[in-house]
């Protein structure tokens, strides 16, 4: 149903994504041309300077694509299971929870491998998400959008101060952490991509498998149960996937906010509520937004660059305010 609009959304989305990917590879402190990109693919051992630049940028662009898709789908899942338009990894404080656990791991348990970062990040993220949701559920009316935002902000602030408390006195941790604190996809390598890909794929495949169930869960819980849906199991698997997706990205790139908030929201507004399409389109547009933010960070930050996380916040902040104003009168 509504298939013309959906098809159009795919065509536009994929075009933007290809364009964003191309710009992300070619544009930078030193810009290169299309021929260099083609050469980089044809001759991987080339010693040409421009070709080498392209080869160095490809991992960053591919990681950005994966991270954007993952964060966006993660936000979508969280919004659907909480029926709350502003649920998102950053709003729920999940990013900060993941940060705190990673910092604790580095400082006190001498964690070194990126795989172990992903592990502790996941644990920190899931604990924080549950805590914030519980906190927002207390009192009259359950977890309303506003209460969720406040609970998330308060928890985030508290957790950030713990992070500072741990990081400040440790200068060695401080240096590593400073880059990581603001989300950035700048320093990523092909090894990083290989590391995160299995986790991201698990998260995305699980959510696609759940798409019929997620469509049903957006009805009232009573209706969903009467339709034969196991509501709690669906929520649990979706929450697992959502947290896995954002925790994996956060472990390597640091907290990148607002992508998961704005992309699914806009797609839902324009295209409504079929989860199979919502998931795919959120992935496509989320990847584009992240790549574009990253490129903008390189343009605006010249001669250096602004971190991706700063750019997504600059773009996403105003959209967040619009959504929360709308959310006062409506829910999902």
């Amino acid at each position: 149903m509504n298939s013309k609009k959906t098809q159009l959304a795919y065509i536009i989305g994929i075009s933007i994504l290809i364009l964003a990917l191309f710009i992300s590879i070619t544009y930078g402190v030193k810009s290169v041309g299309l021929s260099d990109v083609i050469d980089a693919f044809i001759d991987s051992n080339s010693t040409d300077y421009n070709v080498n630049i392209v080869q160095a940028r490809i991992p960053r662009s591919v990681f950005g694509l994966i991270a954007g898709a993952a964060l966006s789908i993660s936000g979508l899942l969280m919004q659907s299971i909480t029926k709350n338009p502003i649920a998102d990894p950053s709003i729920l404080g999940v990013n900060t929870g993941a940060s705190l656990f990673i910092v604790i791991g580095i400082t006190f348990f001498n964690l070194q491998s990126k795989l172990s970062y992903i592990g502790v990040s996941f644990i920190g993220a899931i604990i924080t998400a549950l805590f914030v949701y519980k906190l927002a559920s207390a009192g009259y009316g359950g977890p309303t959008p506003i209460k969720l935002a406040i609970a998330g902000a308060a928890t985030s602030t508290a957790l950030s101060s713990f992070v500072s408390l741990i990081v400040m006195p440790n200068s060695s941790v401080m240096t590593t952490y400073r880059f990581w604190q603001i989300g950035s996809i700048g320093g990523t390598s092909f090894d990083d991509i290989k590391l995160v890909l299995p986790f991201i794929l698990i998260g995305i495949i699980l959510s696609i498998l759940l798409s019929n169930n997620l469509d049903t869960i957006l009805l009232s819980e009573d209706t969903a149960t009467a339709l034969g849906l196991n509501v709690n199991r669906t929520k649990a698997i979706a929450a697992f996937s959502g947290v896995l997706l954002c925790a994996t990205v956060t472990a390597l790139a640091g907290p990148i906010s607002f992508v998961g908030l704005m992309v699914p929201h806009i797609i839902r507004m324009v295209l409504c509520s079929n989860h199979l399409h919502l998931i795919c389109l959120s992935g496509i547009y989320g990847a584009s937004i992240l790549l574009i933010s990253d490129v903008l960070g390189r343009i605006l930050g010249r001669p250096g660059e602004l971190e991706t996380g700063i750019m997504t916040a600059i773009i996403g902040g105003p959209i967040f305010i619009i959504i929360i104003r709308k959310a006062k009168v409506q829910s999902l």
Partner: protein
Amino acid sequence: MNSNTLIAKDIQAGYGQKNILQSVNIHIPENKISVILGSNGSGKSTMLKTFCRLMTPTAGLITLDGTPLSQIKSKDIAKSIGLLPQTSIAPEGIKVAELVSRGRYPHRQFMTGLNKDDYKAIEEAMEAMKITELADRSIDELSGGQRQRVFIALALAQETDILFLDEPTTYLDIAYQIEILDLLKELNKKRGTTIVMVLHDINLSTKYADYLFAMKDGTLIKQGTPSEIITEDTIRKIYGIDSVIIRDPISDSPFVIPVSAHDNYLS
């Protein structure tokens, strides 16, 4: 095989420690329209929820064609028993046809789109509720009566032999109430769907129901045909009010006129 014999034996159910249903025994009349009457908080919704296994009975047994509900897969139960809950919600901006299509959930295979049977069921459900013309409208643009018909169509698309409806006509004006009840009656006649609903209007209940159940404080205090159980005594027991009962001049069913304290009427 028509799976539509639904029997509850000595069921109890409640919320947390609080027990609401006190040992209810009920055999849902097959292929009939039944109406549950009772004052607010008497446990009508709780009973419907227990039958649709939104709640598990803490004691007793509900069987569908002889098999305990707890031993049937949720999706299979959902192919036999449908529910319109007391309040329904829909995702913002969803189109009518898409919302109705959600009723196909129990029939759908894992990870597949809608098939021919699905589209047929959706179409028939929309026809039965006379909302075919609204198919492409957004649910937010509809009137209360239209919305309610969409949600009933969602339950109809489920193609169940038994349909529970919790206050399908509350908040609707009399024209919409009659419209919805007529549509349900037609459904019952055409397809033999067993319908069980909670209504607050006693006189509409007697007009449409083949069978009435009266609830008070979580127990079933009376059951029978409207003529059998609508008496001044039963009305006093259910609602605690005095009344005079006459005959509806059109359908000849019992018609209840409540007595007000200002009526100066001595019963």
